[in-house]
């Protein structure tokens, strides 16, 4: 408890400063033009969501930030650094942790090897003990092959391993997809804890009921653009409008 309180004081001064700024971002896979001028920004310590229907460009936005798509134009500033010309392996070293939609657990590594795999990018990451406290299942299965875990455990592993690296900006792609309600709830509690530690989180999420109580702001995407920004305060009044945008 005292540790969490300390973490909050550490980052209070910096809260509200800009962590991520995306301007007029276009992205291409070969000939296909996927993102058509994405604009948004995220302040330090915020949790924002990217909402939208399938194919709206939410996952591609995260991949474009990580420089994992073919070609990009526009501007992506992370923690004050323009990253558009950076090589892919430089970007995580700015303190960015990425959790892909397919989770990306390595089958040739056991659970602990998977956890220890991503290199440390910043000091102040969580220790192995802390991660095992947060995800007790992982401790019990630490010698199992990574891909032998259940879907929920794999998701915990995919999140746990980026917490070790000291990343302060987390890009999480569809972390609740296909998981049982009890696991989804546990992941929600984890996000609350991470936010309390001062992490900045961009959440791509299909499950709006999961995201709504956690997020400070929501960005709605359509056809490769952000078409709407809704703050948590505006949410109750605009819920129906949002539902019509998402088609639920």
């Amino acid at each position: 408890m005292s540790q969490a309180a300390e973490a909050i004081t550490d980052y209070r001064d910096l809260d509200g400063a800009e962590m991520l700024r995306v301007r007029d971002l276009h992205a291409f896979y070969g000939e296909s033009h996927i993102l058509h001028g994405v604009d948004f920004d995220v302040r330090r310590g915020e949790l924002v969501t990217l909402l939208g229907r399938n194919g709206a460009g939410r996952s591609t936005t995260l991949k474009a930030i990580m420089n994992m798509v073919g070609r990009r134009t526009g501007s992506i500033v992370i923690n004050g650094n323009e990253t558009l010309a950076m090589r892919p392996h430089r970007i995580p070293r700015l303190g960015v942790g990425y959790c892909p939609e397919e989770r990306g657990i390595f089958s040739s590594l056991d659970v602990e090897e998977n956890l220890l795999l991503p290199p440390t990018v910043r000091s102040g990451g969580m220790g192995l003990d802390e991660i095992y406290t947060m995800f007790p299942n992982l401790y019990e299965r630490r010698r199992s092959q990574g891909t032998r875990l259940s879907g929920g455990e794999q998701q915990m592993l995919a999140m746990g391993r980026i917490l070790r690296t000291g990343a302060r900006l987390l890009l999480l792609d569809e972390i609740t997809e296909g998981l049982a309600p009890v696991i989804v709830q546990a992941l929600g509690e984890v996000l609350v804890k991470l936010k309390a530690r001062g992490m900045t989180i961009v959440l791509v999420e299909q499950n709006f009921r999961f995201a709504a109580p956690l997020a400070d702001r929501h960005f709605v995407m359509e056809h490769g653009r952000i078409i709407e920004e809704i703050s948590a305060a505006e949410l109750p009044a605009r819920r129906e409008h949002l539902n019509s945008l998402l088609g639920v």
Partner: protein
Amino acid sequence: MTMIFGVPLAVFMGQLMLGLINGAFYALLSLGLAVIFGLLKIINFAHGAQYMLGAFAALLGLQYLGINYWLALLLVPLVVGGLGMVIERTVLRRIAHLDHLYGLLLTYGLALIFEGALINVFGVSGASYPVPEALQGGLNLGFMFLPTYRGWVLVAALVVCLVTWFIIERTRLGAYLRAGTENPALMQAFGVNVPQLITLTYGFGVALAAFAGVLAAPLYPVSPTMGSSLLIVVFAVVVIGGMGSILGAILTGLGMGLVEGLTKVYYPEAANTVIFLVMILVLMLRPAGLFGKEA
């Protein structure tokens, strides 16, 4: 005299030992191929030529620079491995995004260039490399006579194979390598410099081939074509073991050497083909190879 299935024990053990030593070379070479294939997905057809370059570098180093065997064992893999890294940076990287068949064709072309250039200068007859003084003579094991150098080759090859296996399966660097083999894009997203990892891996695989070349120099005639004939067998070994499996490459290499040695004792006419027969059998029964994962 003790006989085993109608063959004198000494002859039997002698052939077995010869087979094991051939197997040690198969293991070293197929190990390098497996390491390279894992990360680069390229079947390195230049592997035989790089083995030959290792033997030649040792020979020329001794003749012109006075570099002795022990120093060559250390320096030659570094130099030839360095050449491998230059090849990866300047040539292989340019075609990395294309179908992997292009990599196969390109490395085959490189092999022809290396061989052709050396044939032009030295001819094909081959030269001999003296066995280092400390390893001359032999050991009487009671049941057979073992030339000291052959015993050394076996021990050195096994040690290098085991160290390589340990690095890949038990260390952090090896975990990078295994993970990079599975999902290089995600490794980059974790902050690992994958292009650099690829260069180092290719260099390491080539260095293993060069190391085998230096070990082979005192045993076989050093000639520009010494690699190409060996490589065909090594490819069969890799197919039998399963592409990309580290332990599989080592065990299959040694095993196939033994099979070849045994065939020489009982049916010498088939000694040169037995490995290919095993390959056909394995392809029929376990297409992914003895140690390979079913796709």
